[in-house]
């Protein structure tokens, strides 16, 4: 890739990011997904996990923050392609010289970063309003874990968007994917309480490793070895998603041009 192309694509990512944020702040559904719903989950979790020992407050903050991250990924990034289809802009995007994954990357980045506000909101609620002491015990490792989490979620967003390019009906599956992932990935409960046959399934999901890394580094229970494993898995999945999404987009866009699904009938 030429230097000039990298510069143009960086600009597209920056502008897609900016425009996504500008549009999202006016969207009540999005505000609900990233702020209100995680706060409700925070309160429920606080009540349910009350007798889990002293570190449970931070566990709740991270866990409910992650539910916001996942839901916004699932609904906002997934729907963004459908939304473009409905507003008629998908054709304008595909017909431009920029590969659409560059646009999706910028939009997903905006979605993931804005959904970190879920964690912030949950933190404010738990610590300032309910008055629980919250301390991140391994702040350095925690920040690394956050960065890896962002990257792996953005890459996952690419896969989801590519599937939506070709199949608008995918939306029906979205609701069904929301809570199972909360549970399988151990956002709010350790997966040890699940039946053992689901464990391999959890290992295959990048959000599981993100939850491990975030929970572990924040409550100080994590060794460098555990963290390396979790970060390594996230890096591996991110790379796989990235490589896969390039191919998927190529195949899906061609199929959409054959099946006439870029526009709306």
């Amino acid at each position: 890739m030429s230097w000039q192309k990298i510069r143009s694509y960086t600009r597209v990512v920056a502008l897609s990011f900016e425009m996504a944020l500008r549009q999202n702040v006016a969207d009540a559904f999005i505000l609900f997904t990233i702020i209100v719903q995680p706060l409700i989950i925070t309160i429920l979790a606080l009540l349910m996990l009350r007798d889990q020992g002293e570190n449970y407050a931070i566990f709740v903050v991270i866990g409910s923050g992650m539910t916001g991250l996942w839901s916004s990924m699932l609904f906002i990034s997934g729907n963004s392609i459908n939304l473009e289809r409905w507003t008629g802009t998908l054709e304008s995007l595909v017909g431009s010289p920029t590969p659409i994954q560059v646009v999706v990357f910028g939009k997903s980045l905006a979605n993931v970063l804005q959904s970190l506000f879920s964690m912030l909101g949950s933190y404010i609620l738990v610590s300032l309003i309910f008055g629980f002491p919250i301390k991140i015990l391994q702040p350095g490792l925690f920040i690394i874990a956050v960065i890896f989490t962002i990257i792996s979620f953005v890459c996952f967003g690419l896969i989801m968007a590519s599937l939506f390019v070709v199949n608008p009906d995918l939306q029906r599956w979205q609701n069904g994917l929301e809570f199972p992932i909360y549970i399988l990935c151990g956002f709010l409960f350790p997966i040890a309480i699940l039946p053992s046959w689901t464990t391999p399934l959890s290992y295959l999901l990048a959000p599981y490793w993100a939850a491990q890394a975030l929970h572990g580094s924040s409550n100080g229970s994590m060794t460098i070895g555990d963290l390396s494993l979790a970060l390594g898995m996230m890096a591996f999945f991110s790379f796989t998603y990235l490589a896969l999404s390039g191919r998927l987009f190529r195949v899906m866009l061609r199929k959409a041009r054959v099946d006439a699904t870029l526009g709306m009938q």
Partner: protein
Amino acid sequence: MNMIEINNLRRVYKATIGTLRRKTKEVVAVDDISFNVSAGELFGLLGPNGAGKTTVVKMLTTLLIPTSGTARIMGADVEKEAEKIRPKIGFIFGGERGLYWRLSAQDNLRYFASLYHVDPNVSKKRIEYLLELVGLEDRSKEKVEGYSRGMKQRLHIARALIHDPEVLFLDEPTIGLDPVGARKLREVIRNLQSEQKTILLTTHYMFEADALCQRIAVIDHGNIVALDTPEALKKLVKDLSVIEVEVFGVPEELFGRLREQPFVDNVAVENREQTQVLMVQTPRGSEAVPDLIALLDGVRIGKVTSREPTLEDAYVRLVGGET
């Protein structure tokens, strides 16, 4: 040089019908179309709704893959070399959709400038120039959702021009506009031509094609039924005259009966407020009036006039009365 070259282009859609027992039905949207457009030409694709105009434009703008046949834009194949074509063309599909309504006109243009890799130093001036060109400079900071339909459609034109493309596709740019808005937009299109752009315009208004285009292809049911200059198309009907009969409610079957008459070449009907006007094309001129009146026995008749044929009549003759 030919900027657009189309050979035996065809596109079939598979449509699913029925919800319980799903069946697929094939719709031939574009049957067999060939034509060329040369550099700097403003070429019109004229046809009634459903004729296949949008499908042609979508194939030419790399958004749909042809079922068979080939199309080349500046020498590049629309199916296999889409990446070469996309930076060089601009396109709009008529109507209000296709813009980000929650953003301002300026932000829309800024965004598309980045998608088309327009240098940020250039794009600032370009955006200013385009906003002025389409007459939106005063309201460019407002959100698009508050714009009138005409303003949105003019913003589309600015969007399509952001990277100064060599070939422009305008699919029914004036659809749904009031006469004033449509006239303003045609003015913009006419100005583009002085910039030496190659333009393919589609419309279902004959007078629009006549006013703007150097050559017109008339398309119906996915095929080209005539391709010529507006003047030459008018000659198609020069030996006919048109008798207009004002009527108050005509039964459907009368059209068929009229068309069967040996002295009648074609019949179109135009609905006005209280009345309908039958436009009967005939080689016999006003001599045919008495026979015509006799056929309309039992129908309330108003004014009857005879006139020279127009381009509109040529169009009616080519695609039948269903304009």
